[in-house]
């Protein structure tokens, strides 16, 4: 049980502070409502915020977004920045599913135009997209082709006909991170990556069709291309077995390296190395390669979604009428420029279950969105709501330009199964008019809406703290899960 009690910041709502003690180099800063904080008591998430604060080189704070929950090493929702030259990089701050992320495709249709064909849509999506455990994709990559994927990311996919050229400018990093080196990726990771492209995976990965149920910021919604009752598509997946293997490999490397570079860290899942060290440089290069694999994967999945959508709703009139709104990474380490104590610095930002939230005017966001800030995509759960937010200037000061990445789990998978039957869940979703298909009924139960925090509470804290601004709320219509 955690005895750590964050103190409410008297000056600022939704800000909670853990003052540094012991090996903590910086304070812990949690953005949350009272109810989110109350729910954290008795979990290890707060201890993980404290542990991250001891990372060598950590700047300003060990930050936790409002969807914080217990992870391993970092909490999910954890953000930590270190100097790009000699700060520590740790696989525990990025996770096993490197560049797990989400994207949204916009359609020209409204909910009223599609409601009679939702069952057809869910069946067609489920048939088309390889979902679940052990499912290989239709794309088999040679060693050389896979090397190109690891360098070119989503660009590789578009070049092969999976998607549109303009998709690339609407991905973080243009869908391909610089610094990727396939030579830093093990043969074992290559083997796990040969047949994974274009597969959804299991767990919390999904494809969803939703509709815009409420607009909070009409001007920004217009710039983003959102309108009331509009149908949009969400794609949530990551780097599959290749990314998992990269993380496993480098946790072993960092276990060996950590004693060379400093005192032991409070959690072995935080083991890392300075970015200037051979181990740190190699891990960054391998992580970037896995991130590129994930962008290629979501790009291929996007192509499948467009094919299915155009088949079920021919009035769309072609895949170019299903443009990408944006693609964001949730589990990643990014080299970015930030102002730290009044000084411009290049830093590595670890985001473990957090979304980048860059403000209006930032050069790294597409020109189309530059006046309004980056779209921040926040999927909720399969039964309630999701949100699209916009990045803010405050996020640059508060969290190294970061916001929440979802609702965040509230219940363990075992508890979800204990408290809900498959029949009850299917009945609940049917009553709401949500069409669902899943590769595994057990997997579906584990991802039930009640297993997640209420996304309303998470968005309340995110918006209220200034990490991102509400633009639109969406409700689910069709969900396929692994």
């Amino acid at each position, binding site marked *: 049980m955690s005895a750590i009690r964050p103190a409410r910041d008297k000056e600022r709502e939704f800000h909670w502070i853990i003052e540094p003690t012991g090996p903590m180099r910086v304070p812990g800063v949690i953005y949350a409502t009272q109810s989110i904080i109350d729910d954290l008591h008795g979990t290890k998430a707060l201890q993980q915020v404290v542990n991250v604060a001891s990372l060598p080189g950590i700047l300003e704070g060990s930050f936790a977004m409002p969807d914080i929950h217990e992870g391993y090493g970092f909490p999910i929702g954890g953000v930590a920045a270190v100097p790009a030259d000699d700060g520590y990089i740790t696989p525990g701050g990025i996770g096993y599913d490197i560049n797990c992320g989400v994207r949204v495709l916009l359609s020209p249709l409204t909910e009223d135009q599609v409601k009679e064909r939702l069952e057809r849509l869910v069946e067609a999506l489920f048939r088309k997209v390889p979902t679940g*455990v052990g499912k290989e994709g239709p794309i088999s990559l040679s060693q050389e082709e896979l090397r190109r994927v690891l360098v070119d990311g989503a660009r590789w996919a578009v070049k092969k006909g999976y998607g549109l050229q303009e998709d690339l400018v609407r991905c973080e990093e243009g869908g391909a991170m610089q610094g990727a080196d396939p030579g830093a990726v093990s043969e074992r990771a290559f083997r796990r990556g040969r047949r994974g492209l274009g597969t959804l995976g299991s767990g919390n990965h999904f494809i969803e069709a939703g509709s815009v149920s409420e607009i909070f910021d009409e001007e920004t919604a217009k710039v983003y291309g959102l309108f009331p009752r509009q149908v949009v598509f969400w794609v949530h997946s990551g780097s599959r077995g290749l990314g*998992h293997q990269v993380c496993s490999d480098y946790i072993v490397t960092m*276990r060996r390296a950590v004693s060379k570079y400093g005192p032991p860290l409070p959690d072995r899942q935080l083991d890392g190395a300075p970015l200037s060290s051979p181990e740190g440089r190699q891990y960054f290069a391998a992580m970037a390669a896995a991130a590129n694999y994930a962008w290629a994967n979501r790009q291929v999945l996007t192509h499948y979604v467009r094919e299915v959508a155009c088949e079920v709703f021919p009035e769309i009139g072609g895949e170019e009428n299903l443009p990408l709104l944006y693609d964001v990474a949730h589990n990643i380490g990014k080299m970015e420029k930030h102002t730290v104590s009044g000084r411009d610095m290049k830093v590595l930002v670890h985001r473990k279950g957090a979304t980048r939230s860059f403000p209006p005017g930032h050069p790294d966001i597409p020109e189309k969105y530059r006046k309004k800030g980056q779209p921040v995509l926040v999927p909720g759960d399969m039964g309630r709501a999701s949100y699209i937010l916009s990045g803010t200037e405050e996020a640059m000061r508060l969290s190294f330009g970061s916001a929440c990445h979802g609702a965040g789990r509230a219940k363990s998978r075992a508890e979800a199964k204990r408290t809900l039957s498959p029949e009850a869940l299917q009945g609940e979703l049917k009553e709401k008019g949500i069409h669902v298909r899943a590769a595994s009924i057990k997997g579906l139960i584990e991802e039930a809406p009640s297993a997640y925090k209420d996304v309303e509470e998470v968005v309340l804290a995110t918006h209220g703290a200034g990490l991102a601004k509400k633009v639109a709320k969406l409700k689910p219509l069709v969900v396929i899960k692994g």
Partner: protein
Amino acid sequence: MEEGPKRQGYEFQDHVADVRIRAWGNGFEETLVAVTTAVWSYVLGDVSLPRSRSWEVSAEGHDMDDIVVSFLNEQIYLYESEGLVPLSVKDLKVQGKDGALRLEALFEGCLLTEMPVSPERQVKAATYHGLVVGPELIEVTLDV
């Protein structure tokens, strides 16, 4: 998986994001077999499968913590890359001393393509998070 001696067993514990296994047995090797049984019971679910082949699995590590994590991750790697589905493990031996330990074990099972139904769940990796390794008790968190 085959039934072990009376004191061998496992349970799944609650973890908000992932899955935590607590396993016990008469000695380290038997306890590690119980952990292995738990992992594959979680992945495969309740399904009857043929034992069509056997294969060796080895793992190396600096200490017993490394041995547990790398042994489980080796199984996950072979499952995902070669489609080898473990159903039982025997002849599990750990040799060497701290600083250079090696584990070898013999598995029986089948290929993923021989499964009549899809596995129920995916495990990304075994982690060091909250890892407890003793001669008669192992607790390990799986990233799922």
